[in-house]
């Protein structure tokens, strides 16, 4: 699909993480799939490093 075709086609959106974006698009009638995502260990670098060592 080239860029012009993409921009002319109806929007089909997968939103990751920030639920507000999903609500806004949904309010405008745009179909959205919301992915419930958050950074590993809430973004805590020390815990992420520990989890990495523990195979998670």
């Amino acid at each position, binding site marked *: 699909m080239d860029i012009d075709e993409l921009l002319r086609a109806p929007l089909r959106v997968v939103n990751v993480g920030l639920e507000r974006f999903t609500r806004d698009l949904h309010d405008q009638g745009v179909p959205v799939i919301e992915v419930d995502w958050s950074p*590993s260990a*809430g973004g805590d670098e020390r815990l992420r490093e520990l989890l990495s060592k*523990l*195979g*998670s």
Partner: protein
Amino acid sequence: MLADRIEKANREAVERIFAGDPVLLDVRPAADVIAGLEDRVVLHAGPPIAWEAMCGPLRGAIAGAAVLEGWAKDLAEAERLAGSGALAFHPNHHFDAVGPMTGITTRTMPVMVFENRAFGNRAYITVNEGLGKVMRFGGNDEEVLARLRWIASDLGPAMGQAIRSLGGIPLKPIVAKGLAMGDEMHQRNVACTGLTVRAIAPALARTMGEAGKLATILEFVSGNDQFFLNIAMGMAKALMDPVRGIEGCSIVTAMSRNGTDFGVRVSATGDEWFTAPVEMPQGLYFPGFDEVDANPDIGDSTIVETVGLGGFAMAAAPAVAGFVGAGGAAEAIAHTRAMYEITAARNPAWTLPALEFAGTPTGIDIRKVVETGVAPTINTGIAHREAGVGQVGAGIVRAPLACFVGALESFAATVGAT
């Protein structure tokens, strides 16, 4: 390499849970079967706690137990005695036992005896007293104590005799049926209570001499929709104890609350408790009560979630989602789906019809809890914050993430990953 070692240890843990064969074996006075339960020793719910740090219902229940045991002539003397250091307080979990809410266990109270026949270990828990003003919710007046005396003099011995005559009651099949009948075994035990009555009533009739006493016992048991809760807890304790102490295993073996702290134990770190302040349940209140009356989260009953029931099996029990103020069937399913994110396996023996008979989420992995930030969902009763009042509602509470972070750090040190 380390990751493989942990995965192997965790597989061993869930295989032990699945291989478990818990049986309700007997009912006996606590002092006869719980080793080390001496005079003036009080077992309570949750991790260790001193009298000074205890919440109102826990203090109230201890005072009631001191009067029940004859250590004090009234509640005022009992409080003075408890505060003087003359009583010893220990967690149920340190004595192979568990207890709902305040979880008080003392010498003369009858306890149900569970044996995990696959591993030979035993677990103990008191008999459920009923709803409302009862000792597990901090109730301690004469009505509460009279009921406990009747449980010790009549119900306990009769139940013990009947269960012995049956050679024990296997519990996994009852729970499997209960899940298909709308129970999650924490805040909804209607089906399993009925199934238990069905299992035990003929034996009670055969072994008891007096029809009047038999009728009173059957009325008491079948009139209490939560009677099976204590059985589910004892069963869960018997299933989880063989998982303790597996080298390299990051599976939770116990979650428990004393009304002040929430505590977690993990297989590889043995009997160490990882604690954080308990949270307030969010839920619905009985008429005349609201949030200002509520005590923070309390009880050993989270052993039910530890084994994959209760909040983890909410998909089986849409009615409970309404009872605890969590919504309806869709929300119940969402809670169970979230618990799959933090568990190691699905229990093939306990399945959920609403999820195409998927197994219950089993084996809480502390790594997954910390990684996802998804805290275990717990269905719970809510006690009044003051001693002597009793239950005021039911709701949902989350295990504090800080317990799991602390556990993860200690686990990492144990396996040499720091």
